[in-house]
């Protein structure tokens, strides 16, 4: 259980600084440090057991389906990484206390720590993932460890403050991928695919990283690319796949972490003291900060693989392993050669790091006089550098147990014999080291010519720029593609929708004997054509007549009354739309649209024809049967609307209410230019409210109201119903608006249309809820025949109340819509626009 504390304490530490920020920087540093320290202590407490070869496991099932468990598994490798993360993290906290200026948020370090801890220290063991391929893992691992071709993001993150990059680059974040490789090493390694993928990637990364490191003028850039290179080296080692290569890999992880962290901190100190990281401006700093210079030199020597420092040991092992990798047959010489080349480059940039910064001429254009940093800022560097030396000189006494433990758990088996001695005699690896050292120094001496050559070969594009170039191309291509696909034209999108419809109907019906077995009726009918609104009215009328012809009086009534309101609506809109629109479609476009429209028409007609000539077995018999006994109404269509499928109708009037409500919101505050003349330039007539019209529409209102009441009441038994009645009422009222104007009518209609609409829906809904009282589901209807003396038999049906709700909704929303549209002219500026 304490294992989980190792993770959660630093996590807590990450959250604390933002909370303690008011208490000052020291408190922040202390709080974060204390927690990390505690975690480290717990880790150390467990370490003896690990060194003894035990594996401490704390497992909490996470997602067993994927074999994902939240398993904390403290074995050698885990211990190594945890030590690196916590130990270096602790030192960084101390360092950051002095490095970050007052204005930098302390929380940001914590923020990274959080992600770091999450990303690397969570040990997600993916036991069951083995059928899942290598590629994903490698992809993940390579992305994380900044391997080629993903190595660009790492130097790119250089904007981060130095402690953060120190931590990120050397110790932890980027090694998450390496950790993944190491963790999965026993399971995945040893195949040809593994070798070529991992070794190939590693080699490419080693060389590219080293090459770029040499040509970076920015200190941190150099270190960042060097990190890329070293990670490549570790990857390469895991790729070779032998147990000893794995040992070398693990060993190099340790060594790299120590020297690279100290170098990053040294770079930070230099940046802090001189205000620049550009090596062309730096130089001669030995005079100002000898102590720091010494520390940096030791670390750099280790990075270069100079004997007596820890980097040398793992590099020797690396050389030895490249010589033994036998996968490549007669090309086996290639790997050692490339390894030597990489080492040579690494020597060159290490020398450059030291010489260009601490020796030679300079510093140039420095505003302040550099001096040694505060004491405690150097302590972390000293600790790490001491480690470099100790490990380098006394490997067997220092790092061996940890290495053995970590490597054993990496390889997953007993390790073969290996020796951590400094001196192995005159061997091929030693020769390679020597070549690298001498060659590196020579290369450094030739640096100015090389820089010129580099600038000529890659005038603009260094690797990062290449990546940027490639990315920019991809982005440009995406821009182009997206803009080409999404040209913002409704016509295009609508065309695609229609084409989709055409395709699905077409492919489905193609080749089908479309005509079914049912014989046809004889023909009697009419056809249509004309200008738009007019055509629409004609169509509306024709459709209504068709509804009548096919025994649907309710539909004819509805269609007709909707028709009236729609025409009013369209006429209202036409006023504000240009009377003349420029012809925009090209002939080709009109042909295309014509074909598309024709095809769509044909396909829908085919669909209709196909269905109409087939027999139908429908559930409707039930409605005809149950309408009177169950629904209490003889107009089956209406009973379906208010009873069998009353829920649809509730939704439908809700739609109407929302539309009205939305239109009200949409038109509020809208100002439209009102044309002062019609399309031909004629000024409007002066007679706003023609006498005959207003004189007839006023007495018509009571008559229409009575008719609408009649239609409402009889709807349950004969054609009619709330919707039609509502429209009749609304049209009669709108007629008053047309005949006498908004102000006149509004004075006489003291209703809040919104509330009227809402009350309609509410009545309908509450009618439905009322059935709960009788332990029936929502919208269960009930009806009763009441016999009154003298007056006769009356039916009272709850569905009628529902229909009243429909009626009110329709009246309210229609008035809300049309009155608001009509009102537009009142608020719009007249005569603003002339045709």
């Amino acid at each position, binding site marked *: 259980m304490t294992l989980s504390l190792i993770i959660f304490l630093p996590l807590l530490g990450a959250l604390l600084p933002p909370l303690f920020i008011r208490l000052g920087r020291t408190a922040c540093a202390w709080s974060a440090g204390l927690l990390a320290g505690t975690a480290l202590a717990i880790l150390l407490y467990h370490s003896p057991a690990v060194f003894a070869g035990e594996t401490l496991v704390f497992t909490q099932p*996470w997602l067993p*389906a*994927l074999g*994902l468990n939240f398993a904390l598994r403290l074995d050698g490798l885990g211990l190594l990484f945890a030590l690196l993360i916590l130990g270096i993290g602790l030192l960084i906290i101390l360092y950051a206390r002095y490095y970050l200026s007052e204005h930098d948020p302390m929380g*940001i370090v914590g*923020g990274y720590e959080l992600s770091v801890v999450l*990303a690397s220290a*969570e040990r997600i063991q993916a036991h069951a993932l083995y059928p899942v391929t290598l*590629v994903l893992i490698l992809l993940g691992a390579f992305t994380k460890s900044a391997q080629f071709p993903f190595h660009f993001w790492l130097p790119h993150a250089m*904007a981060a403050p130095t402690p953060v990059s120190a931590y990120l680059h050397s110790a932890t974040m980027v090694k998450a991928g390496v950790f993944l490789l190491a963790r999965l090493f026993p399971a995945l390694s040893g195949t040809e695919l593994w070798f070529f993928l991992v070794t190939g990637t590693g080699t490419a990364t080693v060389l590219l990283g080293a090459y770029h490191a040499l040509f970076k003028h920015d200190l941190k850039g150099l270190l960042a690319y060097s990190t890329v290179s070293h990670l490549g080296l570790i990857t390469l080692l895991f790729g070779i796949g032998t147990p000893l290569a794995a040992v070398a890999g693990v060993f190099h992880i340790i060594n790299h972490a120590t020297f690279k962290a100290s170098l990053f901190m040294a770079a930070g100190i230099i940046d802090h003291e001189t205000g620049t990281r550009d090596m062309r401006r730096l130089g001669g700093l030995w005079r100002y900060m000898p102590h720091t210079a010494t520390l940096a030199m030791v670390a750099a020597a280790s990075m270069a693989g100079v004997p007596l420092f820890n980097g040398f040991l793992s590099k020797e092992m690396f050389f030895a392993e490249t010589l033994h990798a036998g996968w490549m047959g007669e090309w086996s010489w290639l790997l050692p050669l490339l390894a030597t080349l990489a080492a040579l480059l690494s020597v060159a940039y290490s020398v450059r790091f030291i010489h260009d910064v601490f020796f030679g001429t300079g510093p140039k254009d420095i505003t302040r006089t550099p001096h040694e940093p505060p004491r405690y800022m150097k302590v972390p560097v000293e600790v790490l550098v001491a480690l470099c030396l100790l490990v380098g000189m006394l490997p067997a006494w220092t790092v061996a147990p940890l290495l053995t433990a970590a490597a054993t758990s990496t390889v997953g088996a007993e390790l073969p014999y290996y020796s951590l001695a400094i001196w192995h005699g005159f061997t091929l690896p030693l020769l390679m080291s020597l070549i690298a050292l001498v060659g590196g120094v020579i290369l450094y001496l030739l640096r100015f010519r090389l820089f010129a050559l580099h600038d000529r070969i890659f005038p603009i594009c260094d690797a990062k720029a290449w990546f940027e170039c490639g990315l920019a191309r*991809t982005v440009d291509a*995406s821009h182009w*593609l*997206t803009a080409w696909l999404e040209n*913002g034209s*409704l016509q295009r999108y*609508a065309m695609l*929708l229609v084409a*989709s*419809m055409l395709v*699905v109907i077409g*492919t*489905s019906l193609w080749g*089908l*004997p479309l005509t079914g077995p*049912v*014989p046809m009726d004889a023909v009697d009918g009419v056809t249509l054509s004309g200008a738009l609104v007019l055509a629409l009215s004609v169509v509306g009328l024709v459709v209504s007549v068709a509804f009548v012809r096919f025994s649907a009086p309710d539909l004819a009534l509805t269609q007709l009354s909707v028709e009236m309101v729609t025409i009013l609506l369209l006429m209202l809109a036409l006023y504000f739309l240009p009377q003349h629109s420029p012809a925009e479609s090209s002939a080709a476009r009109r042909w295309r649209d014509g074909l598309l429209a024709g095809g769509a028409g044909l396909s829908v007609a085919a*669909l209709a024809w196909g*269905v109409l000539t*087939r027999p*139908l*077995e*429908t559930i*409707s018999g*039930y409605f005809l049967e149950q309408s009177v006994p169950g629904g209490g109404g003889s107009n089956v269509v209406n009973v379906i609307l208010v*009873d*069998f*499928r*009353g*829920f*649809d109708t509730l*939704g439908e009037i*809700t*739609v109407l209410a*929302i*539309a009205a*409500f*939305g239109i*009200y*919101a949409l038109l509020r*505050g809208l100002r439209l230019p009102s044309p002062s003349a019609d399309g031909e330039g004629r000024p409007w007539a002066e007679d706003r409210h023609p006498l005959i019209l207003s004189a007839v529409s006023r007495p018509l209102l009571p008559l229409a109201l009575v008719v609408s009441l009649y239609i409402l009441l009889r709807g349950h038994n004969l054609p009619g119903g709330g919707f039609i009645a509502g429209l009749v009422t609304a049209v009669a009222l709108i007629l008053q608006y047309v005949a006498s104007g908004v102000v006149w009518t509004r004075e006489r209609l003291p209703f809040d249309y*919104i*509330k009227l*609409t809402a009350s309609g*829906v*509410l009545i309908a*809904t509450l009618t439905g809820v009322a*059935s709960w009282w009788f332990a*029936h589901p*929502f919208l269960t209807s009930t009806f009763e025949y009441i016999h009154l003396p003298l007056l006769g038999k009356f039916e009272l049906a709850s569905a009628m109340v529902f229909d009243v709700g429909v009626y009110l909704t329709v009246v309210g929303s229609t008035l809300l819509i049309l009155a608001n549209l009509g009102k537009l002219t009142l608020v719009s500026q007249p005569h603003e626009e002339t045709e």
Partner: protein
Amino acid sequence: MTHTIILPVLLPLLTALVLMFGSQRSLAWKRGVSLAATAALLPLGLLLLQQVYSGAYGVYVLGDWVAPFGIVLVLDRLSALMLVLTALLSLPALLYASHGDDNTGPNFHALFQFQLMGLNGAFLTGDLFNLFVFFEVLLIASYALLLHGAGPARSRAGLHYVILNLVGSGLFLLAVGTLYGITGTLNMADLAVRVAAAGPADAPLLRAAGLLLLVVFALKAALLPLYFWLPRAYSAASAPVAALFAIMTKVGVYSIVRVYSLIFGAQAGLLADAALAWLWPLALATLVLGALGALAARELRTLIAYLVVVSVGTLLAGFALNNSAALAASLYYLLHSTLMAGGLFLLAGLIRTQRGAEGDQLHPAAPVSQPALLGSLFFLAAVAVVGMPPLSGFIGKLLLLSSVTPGTQWIWLWAIVLGSGLLALITLSRAGSQLFWNTLDITPVAPRADRLRLAGVVLLLASAPLLSLFAEPVHRYTQATAAQLYAPAGYIHAVLGERDIPRLTIGLEELP
């Protein structure tokens, strides 16, 4: 008789009506009413989820008219999941909206409630025509919400959105009509029975209807080639509306899953799996184009809109794989992607308000006033969306990738999902660095984020670690859901029982 099933529809409806009545009252009152009602949806959803957790079905027979004659609401694991998801998304969105976004035009809250009513109704209904009606409810509410407040971009995007959806509604009716014309029924369970029994003479017509439905749902879900309207529409909407819209595409996905598992599923005889052949390539192409669109985006909101497109592609590709594990993975991914898209839209809103005139444009501008806070939230969301461990996106994608058996599909899915993940990584790193690192040296002047808004963002983004932490129970539920969906007999039996359904024959008696 338990009425809880219908409450997710009635509660928002009644709330909306109350808000309409109180349209003249204070904003504080409206916010209170709206927030209370929305908050109640979550326990309600959980209660319903608990009712069907073990695999039971809840059938609510509206008007006491038995299926297939009347309309029924059917609660199964999938619908319960969608209800909970809607509740989870809407409350933070509303919290966020309740700090000013609800004030740029009249009646935001009533429209919001209407939208919820439509969503919940669509998830619950067991009747195809009723599904159409609820589509219309949620669409008309979404039109009004999208246009809430003003602005030319909103008007233009809104016009396209509305017109396309109106055509979509027409196609929906054509499909419903054809289905009725052949099968004589509207109840989805009954349709499943009838479609499965269809003979070769009727099958092509039914296929046309089924594929028309696919077109309609694909338009809503934003599938290639019908997603082009989405980026502009979503990026034109206000932050909370865009966040709520994160579920609009999922309604399309839900409908596809429902219709193509129940009516045109594996057991549909001649029409078995009618849509899968179309769905698979289109979903993958959507994924790719969405990822490229995100890369090309010049505004954060557009970028997120494309991420929504990517998520739809991923989800539908998962469904097209046609196996239970893949569907379970997709449903898990659906939860993740919906909540994260919602959270990102809200976060984009915060960033926009803090970045001054530059808004959420992805080029260097003044820094936000809370870089650490917003940056961390963005980082969290990016990690989750890209699919990096350990957050929910990683788990979702991993579940999906591991659900496919080696073969051609395997190669396509792996290549495209991983490739688009990489593109998303690049896209979001670029966006993040533009928004938080490469800032101009200007002191930010915008006020810090309001607590309500921040709460909205944090609540939604917290879903990434939470979905990850509770991946096991959630995935267990989605697995059970997928299993239930691929065994539609249970659904059909729950709705229709053993009843013999009388049918009236029209047309046959005229045959010689």
